């Protein structure tokens, strides 16, 4: 060890490591003392860390450390704290009636804020982030409601869904008149044109309105009502207005009549707590279309 330390390079005045290639010697430039000490300290620190914190994987678990610290437990505590902070306000929201919430600016703001977040997490995939809907998924901003647009009706739909399998769910569906052999193709085309005429949409020139009315009266009135005004008890849409869930083209109407429609809205009771469902009902109602 000592011999090369005595070998002093004449130009730089430094000692060499003793390594020499073709007469070129490697200078001994050790790491600074403070750096080396810090490095050893980090090793000591790491050993302490292994003991205090969870560190090493075992076969089916891991070392838990002296204090049983876990980031997951931290998250649980933080979530519990959050609930505690929100608690009083959410209790107030749960206790108030839907109408009261909408009349109280503070509760309305809370319900809208909460509702917007929960809507984004749960409803936006089908209804869109702003509730604008899509084909088969109703626009929640307009004033046309399949199952009713009052606060209570909206809440009921959110709670139990539509054709969701829940005991209290909304039932009723558009039958497949073509597929099930109830109507022949030409009858379906005729009634599709008749339905278009109900809301003032143009029809085929050769379309027989009287025949269409007759087919409609025999097959459709039971759910859609006289004149096609719809029935919210059965989720049967109003066929006389400007809003079409699947579209108003003749082809789409033929498809609807021929193959039926039965869109599903899941039940949220049990998945979301009652106060959250209330908040969501108020939020959806406040989007603008509520009755």
């Amino acid at each position, binding site marked *: 060890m000592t011999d090369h330390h005595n070998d002093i390079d004449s*130009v*730089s*005045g430094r000692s060499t490591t003793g390594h020499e290639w073709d007469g070129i010697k490697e200078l001994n430039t050790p790491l600074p003392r403070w750096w080396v000490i810090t490095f050893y300290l980090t090793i000591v620190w790491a050993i302490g860390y292994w003991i205090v914190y969870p560190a090493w994987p075992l076969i089916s678990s891991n070392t838990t450390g002296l204090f049983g610290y876990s980031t997951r437990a931290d998250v649980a505590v933080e979530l519990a704290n959050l609930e505690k902070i929100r608690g009083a306000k959410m209790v107030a929201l749960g206790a108030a009636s839907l109408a009261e919430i*909408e*009349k109280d*600016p503070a509760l*309305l*703001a809370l319900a*809208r804020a909460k509702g917007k977040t929960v809507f984004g997490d749960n409803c936006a995939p089908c209804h*869109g*982030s*702003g*509730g*604008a809907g899509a084909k088969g998924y109703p*626009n929640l*901003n*307009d*004033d*046309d409601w399949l199952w009713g647009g009052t606060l209570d009706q909206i809440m009921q739909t959110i709670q139990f869904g539509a054709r969701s399998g829940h005991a209290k769910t909304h039932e009723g569906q558009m039958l497949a008149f073509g597929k099930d052999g109830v109507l022949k193709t030409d009858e379906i085309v005729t009634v599709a044109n008749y339905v278009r005429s109900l809301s003032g949409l143009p029809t085929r020139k050769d379309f027989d309105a009287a025949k269409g009315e007759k087919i409609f009266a025999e097959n459709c009135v039971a759910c859609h009502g006289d004149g096609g005004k719809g029935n919210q008890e059965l989720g049967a849409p*109003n066929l006389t*207005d*400007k*809003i079409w869930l699947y579209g108003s083209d003749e082809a789409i109407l033929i498809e609807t009549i021929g193959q039926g429609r039965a869109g599903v809205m899941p039940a949220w009771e049990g998945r979301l707590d009652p106060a959250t469902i209330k908040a969501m009902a108020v939020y959806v109602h*406040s*989007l*603008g*279309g509520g009755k």
Partner: protein
Amino acid sequence: MNKTVNPNELTSDDNCAPLYAARKKIYPQSVSGTFRRIKWGLMAFCLGIYYLLPFVRWNRGIGAPSQAVLIDLPNSRFYFFFIELWPQEVYYFTGLLIVAAVALFLMNSVGGRIWCGYLCPQTVWTDLFYAVERLIEGDRRERMKKDASSDPMKLERISEIVLKHSIWLLIAWWTGGAWVLYFNDAPTLVKELVTFQGPMIAYIWIGILTATTYVLAGYMREQVCVYMCPWPRIQAALTDEWALNVTYRYDRGEKRTSVKKAAELRALGEHAGDCVDCYQCVAVCPTGIDIRNGPQLECIQCGLCIDACDNVMTKIGRPTRLIGYDNDINIHRRQEGKAPVYRVVRARTVVYSAIIAAVGGIMLYTLATRSLLDVNVLHDRNPVAVRLSDGSIRNAYTVRLLNKSGYDRVIAIDVNGPVNATVHVVGVDSVTPDRPMIVIPRDTTSELRLLVTAPADGNPEKSIPVRFHVTDIGLGEAASATDNFVSP
């Protein structure tokens, strides 16, 4: 002459000299005179404001804070006597910072580093700490002697040191304490702090500022000005030949000699400099420089050397102000036998004053005419427009009403734009269907969801400008915002 250069020696002696220079401890001597009195006065004034301002009360009515100057972070409000600012009005602070910067430039072009010498917190607190040091450990000579002494410390010396640091810490602690009082109701917070019920954050900030005050004023002192502060560099770049700076008038001072020799020379009718090389100017200097070397980066221009020199000149019977506020132009003019010229009104001082007047004027104007009622409108993005079952079009907007006043308001909203439009505010049953009315409590913001519905027939355009006009029907104040009404 061709000396062989040994690279080894060159490396170790010349190139590798450390860039770090150890601090030479400075022992400024006490001095009395005009500038010392000005400095005492300004110190009392500045510290008085800093320590006592949080306790000044201002009546803003029930429910509003009664502290004259308060930075209310939880509620995001800034109170300054009769002014209450909201977060969106931080541009007033921008204006204030512009005025402050240009005022600094103006000071500099008139009288050099007035800020550094008299007003900068670093100077004020360091001066105070030096005063404490002097009071306990004695003046320059005694302190130097005590520090240089290699004898084992006696109880008396130890108690001096302990006392000095205790008083420093007390001042530093009070400095941190006063700081936190600007962020909460001062009397309440003082009560909480002394009964150990105060918020943790207050104690942490007191601790931080106690530490910074103690270290900056007790230990780092002039090093802050010399090494840390950017202003000496900027100042050097901004100054001009007319600016007055603390200057040694070498035209009068040179050639330095003793009192006796000067008298002899003068008796012979020859010229003798007034400077007697007594080093009083150096002894009193808080940054430890010799002003006779000319303008220097280290010089904070506190004027204490002027006092020191004046005292000596008076004693030896020569005119005062051998050191004074002056510039090189006048030194040269005197050397040429001309009368000195002082030019305060110059292009730069005029421009700086004009900037201060303009920015200050704009700020005062906007502050005086600032509306206490405001409205912001945000159009719904998704969906931008909704077709209703009867074919009419509806647009939804988020309307934010700001009531910055100290009283509740009844606001009416008028919407002008689409033909035959109806307006509805969610959660509000209005007696006047097309003109919703809302109560906004004092000092709050209300966010409303406002729906505008218009028939498609009368509004064929893709986009129609719409104006939201809000009126305080009690007081007549109004504000408005514009947006668009679009078709699907």
